[in-house]
């Protein structure tokens, strides 16, 4: 990759501003509330943009582009079905409880509503997941920097060995994220997430524009792709007639209900930004404001994947510059195989691929990898990076690359601040040191940042060393997260739910998810990390189908058990549950709001827009 001074200048400017914001915020960090909860003083629009940005990490941007290239417009279900309804629900119905209960974190809400053991379960599993997620982000970023040869020239000119680039990238991202969170806490993380939101738009909008123009606009795109790529609902009647391998029920119940509500309504990573808003009204508006850009994000991150497939590979003599294939995950950086092929080999691998998507190359033999049908296996993860390299001249290339790096960093930052808060309030203050001064907790919050980043770095190296660890972690997340929403749903909307029932239901749901995974397998996979490690009693058409059905299964078990055990245990007296349960809590006042400010009206508008988008791209 040929980066010129101008590209470096843009990248350096961004980093200077990121750190500058941290320094500027330092003087406002006086209490643990300022530091860990942003003083609960931010306007709704800032929290709203941070709400989606916290989720817009690297895996999201690279992964959605990759899925767009692999499956087409159907990927937009992850936004339209898999996010918007849940965001509307959390804003309209759940936020009054999170914000109004004065809980400082999601686990703390569980303590207020249920009991200590339910909180401890959620706090521990959540804290572990955040540092692992942040480590995965860090790893992915270092891999991408290595694959794109961003620092190669710099290292060669300094006479440093190229296999230090991976370590350098890890260290660089860790130091930058550490600095701005250590200084400015959650406010700094949120401000930088908003900055990153605008950068992603500024970097990807011209990419879509130039890409579409080059292939003859929307009509050109339609003409260049198979018809199935342009529809989101075709073939959803049966799992065998669509690329995801799930039918409409599995999609709406698994993704649209259990997984998406479980994530957007209970994951403190995103909820923390809404809880930082300056009033309950603002907090309710946060997810609704976030839903508007979220709805249109498929055009920014999925469309480039489609364009990458539709772009003829060899034009303008630019074909040699896109990267031919990413090194396999397991290789050690610096070994010859880990350096992506460029030059004449690159063109060869691109020829074996489709559009700008190269074929995967075996890191050992250097040959194109073939699937069981003899077709080359494509490296879809390179869809977005190759689009940037193919369409962007120097100058705006620096901007695009900065946007990509920014997304990796904010993915890390959100996780680190969530870890800070949960550790300080839910674990340290609750179980280790109950009666310290606020200054002590502020200090604890700050230094937890350092620990969180160090564990993340450790995770990044663990991921590097073990072939399957990334898959394993994703699997653990899905098992832990799948049943969670049932606990919150019953807790907030059924006053009879008891603490013992919630805890037993949650634990059983998690075990049920694990058992389901051990007993089922996607077609064509070997028993192991993909499932079936106990005994295979059922086959699913795809990984995604297994994942969706597992979520439905875990949710149902948790729901049923929580209801049954609640009926046999003693509920808490009603006065204790005011502000925590829907039927016992006064409704928020809305008289003074204009019609367009009322959450329910915004929600209706969003639903109409959502239906319209689905009809246009059906």
């Amino acid at each position, binding site marked *: 990759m040929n980066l010129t001074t*101008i590209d470096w*200048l*843009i990248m350096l*400017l*961004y980093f200077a*501003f990121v750190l*500058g*914001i941290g320094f*500027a*915020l330092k003087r*406002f960090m006086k209490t643990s509330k300022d530091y860990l909860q*942003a*003083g*609960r*003083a*931010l*306007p709704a629009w*800032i929290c709203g943009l941070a709400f989606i940005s916290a989720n817009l990490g690297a895996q999201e941007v690279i992964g959605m582009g990759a899925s767009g290239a692999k499956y087409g417009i159907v990927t937009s279900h992850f936004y339209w079905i898999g996010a918007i309804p849940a965001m509307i629900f959390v804003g309209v119905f759940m936020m009054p409880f999170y*914000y*109004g209960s*004065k809980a400082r974190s999601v686990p703390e809400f569980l303590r207020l509503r249920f009991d200590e053991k339910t909180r401890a379960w959620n706090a521990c599993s959540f804290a572990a997941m955040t540092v692992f997620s942040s480590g995965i982000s860090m790893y992915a970023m270092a891999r991408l920097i290595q694959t794109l040869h961003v620092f190669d020239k710099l290292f060669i000119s300094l006479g440093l060995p190229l296999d230090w680039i991976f370590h350098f990238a890890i260290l660089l991202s860790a130091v930058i994220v550490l600095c701005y969170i250590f200084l400015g806490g959650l*406010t700094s993380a949120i*401000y930088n997430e*908003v*900055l990153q939101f*605008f950068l992603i738009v*500024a970097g990807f909008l*011209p990419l879509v524009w*130039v890409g579409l*123009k*080059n292939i003859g606009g929307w009509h050109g795109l339609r003409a260049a792709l198979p018809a199935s790529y342009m529809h989101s609902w075709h073939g959803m009647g049966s799992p065998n007639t669509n690329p995801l391998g799930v039918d409409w029920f599995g999609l709406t119940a698994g993704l649209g209900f259990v997984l998406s509500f479980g994530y957007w309504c209970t994951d403190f990573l995103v909820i923390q930004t809404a809880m930082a*808003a*300056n*009033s*309950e*009204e*603002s*907090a309710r508006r946060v997810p609704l404001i976030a839903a508007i850009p979220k709805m249109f994000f498929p055009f920014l991150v999925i469309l480039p994947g489609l364009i990458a497939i539709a772009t003829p590979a060899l034009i*303008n003599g*630019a074909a040699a510059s896109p990267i031919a294939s990413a090194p396999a995950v397991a290789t050690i950086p610096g070994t010859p195989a880990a350096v992506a092929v460029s030059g004449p080999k690159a063109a060869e691998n691109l020829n074996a691929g489709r559009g700008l998507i190269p074929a995967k190359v075996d890191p050992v033999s250097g040959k194109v990898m073939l699937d069981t049908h003899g077709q080359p296996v494509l490296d879809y993860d390179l869809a977005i990076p190759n689009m940037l390299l*193919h*369409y*962007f*001249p*120097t*100058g*705006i290339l620096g*901007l695009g690359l900065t946007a990509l790096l920014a997304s990796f960093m904010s993915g890390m930052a959100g996780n680190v601040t969530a870890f800070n808060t949960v550790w300080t309030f839910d674990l340290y203050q609750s179980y280790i040191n109950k009666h310290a001064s606020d200054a002590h907790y502020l200090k604890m919050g700050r230094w937890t940042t350092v620990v969180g980043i160090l564990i993340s770095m450790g995770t990044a190296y663990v991921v590097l060393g073990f072939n399957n660890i990334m898959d394993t972690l994703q699997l653990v997340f899905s098992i832990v997260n799948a049943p969670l929403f049932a606990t919150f749903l019953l807790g907030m909307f059924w006053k009879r739910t008891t603490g013992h029932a919630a805890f037993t239901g949650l634990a059983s749901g998690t075990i049920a998810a694990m058992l389901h995974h051990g007993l089922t397998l996607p077609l064509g996979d070997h028993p192991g990390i993909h499932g079936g490690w106990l005994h295979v009693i059922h086959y699913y058409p795809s990984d995604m189908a297994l994942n969706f059905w597992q979520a439905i299964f875990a949710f149902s078990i948790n729901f049923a058990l929580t209801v049954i055990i609640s009926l046999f245990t003693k509920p808490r007296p009603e006065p204790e549950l005011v502000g925590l349960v829907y*039927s*016992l*809590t*006064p*409704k*928020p*006042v809305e008289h003074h709001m204009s019609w367009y400010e009322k959450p329910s009206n915004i929600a209706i508008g969003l639903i109409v827009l959502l239906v319209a988008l689905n009809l246009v791209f059906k």
Partner: protein
Amino acid sequence: MSLDLRIPMGLMFTIVGAILAIYGAITRGSDLYQRSAGMDINLIWGCVMLVFGLAMFLLGRYSDTHPKAPSHEPAEDPTERPRVPGH
């Protein structure tokens, strides 16, 4: 919080926009833009970012000097908000 994000953010977009626009103006008509479908994308997008950045910066400055501007809601304690009884 008394740091309005729009000020640093506006500043950053203004500077990056200006850099891109100036670079685009210097390299106008160069072979560089064969990649981007013949458009001088640096100049065009630099100008867009410049306008966006300036707008953000000025909005931020305006509400800083006019503290009662509508974008700043009064910082009362939100959790003490009056409520009407439920149904």
